[in-house]
């Protein structure tokens, strides 16, 4: 599968794990296997995460309290970790806020 150029964004505090940068242009390298959301998580953990991977990934998925969106749609509507990534996808990780 060819490389994938996507935008990865963090908000609600999730950006604090990624150098306090909210928007990243990411190029996923070409490889044999498909690039899906599940593999993106581990690529981000290995390549973009600055600290505390347990605050981003727990087990095989994203930790509780972070919503994953692709192109402004909840990943739950897209097949979750199985969703296959396309060029120009915008993947957003939102840490939910609780303050008032």
């Amino acid at each position, binding site marked *: 599968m060819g490389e994938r150029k996507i935008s990865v964004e963090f*908000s*609600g*505090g999730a950006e604090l794990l990624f150098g306090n940068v909210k928007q990243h242009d990411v190029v996923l390298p070409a490889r044999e296997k498909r690039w899906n959301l599940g593999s993106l998580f581990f690529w981000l953990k290995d390549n973009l995460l600055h600290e505390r991977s*347990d*605050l981003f990934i727990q087990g095989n998925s994203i*930790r*509780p*309290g*972070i*919503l994953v*969106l692709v192109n*402004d*749609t*909840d990943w*739950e*509507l897209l097949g979750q970790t199985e969703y296959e990534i396309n060029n120009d996808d915008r993947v957003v990780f*939102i*840490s*939910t*806020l*609780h*303050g*008032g």
Partner: protein
Amino acid sequence: SEKKAEGLSREEIARYGRQLILPEFGVEGQVSLKQSSALVVGAGGLGCPAALYLAAAGIGRLGLVDYDTVELNNLHRQILHSEGTVDVPKVLSASASLIRLNSQVECIPYNVALDSSNALLIIEQYNVVLDATDNVATRYLLNDACVLLGKPLVSGSALRFEGQLTTYNYQGGPCYRCLFPKPPPPETVTNCSDGGVLGAVPGVVGCLQALEAISLLAKKKSLYSQKLLLFDGAAGSFRLINLRPRQKSCNVCGESPSVTQLQDYEQFCGSSASDKTKTIQLL
């Protein structure tokens, strides 16, 4: 519309004239709003503007829940309070301001900490609930109580320069547990005391919570069910997200719920329902 206007007094027609002439709102909307009630939980950065615009618009009954007293460091965003009401219970300070603006609104202050022993008794008396709280435990409590009682929950939050808004448990949309079956690790939760917040950010979100509640009550229409509005106040931008519908597997609103009564939410979340202490020791 002569007939419909019967539900309003001459003074009300004069007072709400600028809303009444909106064809999509009209006398019918005003009468519905007058016959409705909303419970605002939290009289802080979100609850102040939300309650203010609900009272201004002419809601019939407005409950306010908060156990806290006004502190000087609240006043940069909690705009119903004032220098003269520092140390006064927030719900009393807020009610006094609301009544000055609109004495026709029946304003009911609950100077209590909402918990599993009192939440159902209070919430069942209202048509819609606004979550304007500051901690995870109370958010799960409100969610479960609203699901058990079948009330829509207009949930706002704000921290630093960001705000979020969605409506839970309404017409096939998800509840809080549909999105977040498990609470977040306590060390990932930041409140406004620790993280700070720019006051106008909860101002924007609170006004939008009022708008959504007015839409629900006056027009039976939700703007934010199954949608999440994200506001980035550092960029001035908004984004509206499509969320999943109600989940069959949900522990409280699903097909075979395991949560059929209120629980101990501080234990469930591993964190306190007060915004003043972040984590309670479980061991």
